């Protein structure tokens, strides 16, 4: 398997996602779409879901099933989880023995399947419910076919994963600076922290858009599961802050953890850095880590 690098894990900690473009080969994508069930454009959404639930060969998986036992051998999803990049990302973030929480086929319907209704995007939401843990689940968003801008690919907000909100309570927001919308080649996978804000787009194309989401939970410690050999020996050492000269190291772990998103408020950007540093400590299994003194300053209490 291809484990994640330290900068990749730090980017996941900071931004809440990793994007693996066209990582799934076409033959697996085609097999997945075949096992998913035949598409019928004329069906209304409820009828389409109803038929797929009845006819699809995508398996029913009980919550808590070990990932290694969830998908029948030779099925598209079994082959998906044998891919080195997928196995490596999963292992790096949720360890060797994750379990399946649930999976679901998300369908965004084109105008032709909506009758008199117009396509509307899904409100912003965070999945599940309020989650105060430092541990986290991951959600794999698998796009088995090409997604164009007209197809309403999933919208997500980088850096939102550590905000503690209650599911659809954020529906009021329509647009947020820095929001991203997925357009991608077939076989692209987004590996999301379970807390990231997201929603489906409006599909104004003439095709259905499919996305298969799989939520995986760790069953043990998530620390030091990636390839740590690239972690610099000086990553625990502090560097100058604020008055920093003209050199910038974009791949430095401290830089990655203290990079703001366009939507961060002035004051909460600092709280986000603090929460990222706490999560990196958890991932590293080392409570002495700090970046740019954000936590040391607060822990300096006598």
């Amino acid at each position, binding site marked *: 398997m291809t484990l994640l690098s330290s900068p990749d894990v730090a980017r996941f900690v900071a931004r809440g996602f990793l994007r693996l473009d066209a990582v799934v080969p076409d033959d697996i994508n085609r097999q997945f779409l075949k096992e998913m069930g035949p598409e019928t454009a004329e069906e209304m959404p409820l009828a389409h879901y109803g038929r797929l639930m009845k006819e699809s060969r995508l398996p029913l998986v009980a919550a808590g099933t070990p990932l290694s036992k969830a998908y029948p051998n030779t099925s598209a999803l079994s082959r998906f989880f044998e891919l080195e990049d997928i196995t490596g990302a999963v292992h790096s973030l949720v360890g060797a023995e994750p379990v399946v929480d649930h999976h679901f086929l998300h369908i965004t319907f084109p105008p032709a399947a909506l009758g008199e209704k*117009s396509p*509307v*995007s*899904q*409100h*912003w939401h965070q999945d599940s419910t309020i989650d105060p843990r430092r541990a986290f689940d991951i959600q794999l968003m698998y796009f088995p076919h090409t997604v164009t801008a007209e197809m309403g690919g999933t*919208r997500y907000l980088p850096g939102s994963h*550590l*905000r*503690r*909100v209650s599911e659809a*309570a*954020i*529906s*009021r*927001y*329509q*647009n*947020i*600076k820095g*929001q991203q*919308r997925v357009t991608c080649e077939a076989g692209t996978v987004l590996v999301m922290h379970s807390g990231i804000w997201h*929603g489906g*787009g*409006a599909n104004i194309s003439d095709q259905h858009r499919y996305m298969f989401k799989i939520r995986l939970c760790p069953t043990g410690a998530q620390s030091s599961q990636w390839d740590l050999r690239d972690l610099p020996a000086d990553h625990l050492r502090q560097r100058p802050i604020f008055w920093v000269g003209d050199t910038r190291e974009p791949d430095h772990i401290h830089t990655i953890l203290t990079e703001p998103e*366009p*939507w*961060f*408020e*002035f*004051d*909460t950007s600092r*709280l*986000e850095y*603090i*929460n990222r540093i706490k999560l990196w400590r958890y991932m590293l299994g080392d409570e002495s880590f700090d970046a740019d003194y954000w936590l040391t300053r607060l822990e300096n209490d006598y």
Partner: protein
Amino acid sequence: MMQRQQVLVLYLASSALDTPTVGWAFYDGTGVERHMAGDQDEPPYKTGLEALMDGWRLIQASSLHSHEQGNEFVTDYLKYEFFFEKLVETTP
């Protein structure tokens, strides 16, 4: 003629109205415009002050709260929310 309310919600980078917009929403009681999540990447006004200068009336601003002990570093909802309105004449 009758009046209908248009509501603009801006989320700013701080409690000051002249700081940058980081999020926004628009709900049109006239039914003319339909906005939805993810339909714009740039805000209609760069700051709250710009909205005031364009005739929007501020009707609500989020208050500043003290920080609950033990939860000082928790982040959650967009923090600086400003509701604006315009009353628009429409025909039935």
